[in-house]
C-alpha cells in the first residue's frame, strides 16, 4: 500500500504541487495523466525523494514519513522499498545489463553476489532480454534499455514501482512492446504508479486514473469513467486533444 497526503512543492516560489493526495493499493495500477507542466513528474519524484516536497506525508507499506522531518535513513528506507523507471532509462553506463540489475541488489540491499546475479538473470529473462545480459547500455537500443530499466525495477521486489513516462523517449514502433510488457507485469500483480501520455494503455491497464492540472488532482476514478464521462471541463478539454488523434491517419 502506498499513499501520499497533502504533497506541496514549490520551485523558486513557483507552486508546482498544491496539496496532492494519491493512494495506490497493493496490486493496483494508478495512472497519472495531464498536460506538460501539470506537476505529474514532480509528484512522482517527490514520492521517492528525488525531489523533496515542502509539505506532506509519504507512506510505503507500514512506514509513514513526514517529508519535512524525513532524515537520510527514512529516505533510504523508502527508496529501498520502491523502484523507479525513468523516462530516459538512467541506466548505469559503466555496468552491463546484468550489472545494472544486480548492482541494485548487491550494493544498497546487500544481497550476496551469486544470488543477486541469479535474481537479475531471472528479471532480464522476464523482460525478454536475457541474451543481452553482457551488453553495455550504449550497445542497446532504447527499447532494450528500457527493458533493462524495468528489469532493475522488478528485481528489487519493491512494494511499488514508479514509472515516469516510460515510453516517451521511445520510437513509436517500440512503444507498443514496452506497454505490453508493463501490462503483463500489472496482470502478474505488480503495484504501479505510472505517469503516462498513453491514454489507451491507461484505459486498459489502470485501475484508477488521476487527471492533474496546475498542481492538483482535478479528477480521479476508474479509467472508463474518466475517459468516457469526464465531469470536469478541464479534463474534457485535455482528453479532446487525445481522442482526436487516437488513431492518426495520413
Amino acid at each position: 500500500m502506498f499513499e501520499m497526503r497533502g504533497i506541496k512543492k514549490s520551485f523558486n516560489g513557483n507552486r508546482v504541487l498544491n496539496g496532492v493526495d494519491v493512494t495506490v493499493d497493493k496490486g493496483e495500477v494508478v495512472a497519472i495523466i495531464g498536460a506538460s507542466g501539470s506537476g505529474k513528474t514532480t509528484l512522482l519524484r517527490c514520492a521517492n525523494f528525488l525531489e523533496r516536497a515542502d509539505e506532506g506525508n509519504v507512506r510505503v507499506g507500514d512506514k509513514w514519513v513526514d517529508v519535512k522531518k524525513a532524515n537520510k535513513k527514512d529516505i533510504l528506507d523508502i527508496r529501498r522499498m520502491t523502484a523507479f523507471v525513468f523516462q530516459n532509462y538512467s541506466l548505469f553506463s559503466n555496468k552491463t545489463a546484468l550489472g545494472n540489475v544486480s548492482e541494485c541488489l548487491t550494493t544498497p540491499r546487500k544481497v550476496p553476489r551469486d544470488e543477486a546475479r541469479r535474481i537479475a538473470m531471472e528479471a532480464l529473462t522476464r523482460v525478454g532480454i536475457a541474451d543481452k545480459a553482457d551488453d553495455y547500455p550504449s550497445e542497446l537500443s532504447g527499447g532494450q534499455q528500457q527493458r533493462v530499466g524495468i528489469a532493475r525495477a522488478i528485481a528489487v521486489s519493491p512494494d511499488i514501482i514508479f514509472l515516469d513516462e516510460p515510453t516517451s523517449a521511445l520510437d513509436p514502433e517500440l512503444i507498443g512492446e514496452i506497454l505490453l510488457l508493463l501490462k503483463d507485469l500489472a496482470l502478474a500483480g505488480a503495484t504501479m504508479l505510472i505517469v503516462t501520455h498513453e491514454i489507451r494503455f491507461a484505459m486498459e491497464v489502470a485501475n484508477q486514473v488521476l487527471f492533474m492540472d496546475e498542481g492538483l488532482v482535478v479528477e480521479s476514478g476508474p479509467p472508463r469513467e474518466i475517459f468516457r464521462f469526464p465531469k470536469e471541463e478541464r479534463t474534457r478539454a485535455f482528453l479532446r486533444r487525445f481522442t482526436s488523434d487516437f488513431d492518426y491517419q495520413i
Partner: protein
Amino acid sequence: MNFSLGFALTAMVESLKGVPVTLFLIVATFGLALPISFSMALARVYKIFPLDPLIRLYVSFVRGTPMLAHLFFFYNLLPMVIRKAMFGLGLNGNLVYDLNPVWLALFVLLLNYLTFMSENFRAAILSIQKDQFEGAYAFGFTKAQAYRRIIIPQAMSTALPALSNSAIGILKSTSVVFVIGVRDVTANAKQVAATSYRYLEAYVDILIIYLVICFLITRIFQLAESRIRRR
C-alpha cells in the same frame, strides 16, 4: 663536430642508472596524486567551504609559477623548517641533511601535479550526467555507494586521456629535479658528459630514454582505456 657512438653507448649505460629514480618519481607522484587530487576535485565540485576557495588559490598559485622556482624555494625552505621542528620535538634535526633530495623532488612534483590532476578529475566529474546519480539514488544507494560503484569508475575512464597527459607531464618534469641533486636520468647524463666534455652524445641518450619511457606510459594508458572503455 664528431659524434662518438662508443661514448654514446657508455653514456647510455650511465644514464640508464638513473631510470629507477625517474620511474620512482613518476609512479610515486602519480600514485599519491590520484586519491588526493580526486578528493580535491570533489571539494571543488561540491564547493565545500573552506576547501574550495583554498584549493582555487593553491591551483592558481602553482599554475602561475614555474616548477623550477618551486624546487629552489622548497629546497631552501623545507629542510630549515623540518630541522627546527625536529629540534623542537627533541629530535636530532641535523639528520635532515642526510635526507635524500628525491623526497623533496617528490613533494614538489606532487605539489604541481595535484593541481593538474584535480582539474582533470573535476572536468570528468562534471561531465557525468545527473541521471547517473538519480539512477543510483532511486534504488537506495547512499551517496558514498553511488560514488564508489557508479560515479568514480565513470569519472576514471573519462579522465583517463587527460590523466595520461598528466603522467607524461610528470615524466618530463622529472628532468629538472637534478638541480636539487637528485640522481635521475638527466643528472647521470650530465655527470658522465662533464667528465669527458662530450655533451651531445649524452643528451641524445637521454632524449631516447625519455622517449621510450613516454611510449611505455602512453601504452599503459591505452591498455587501461581499452579495458575500461567498452561503453
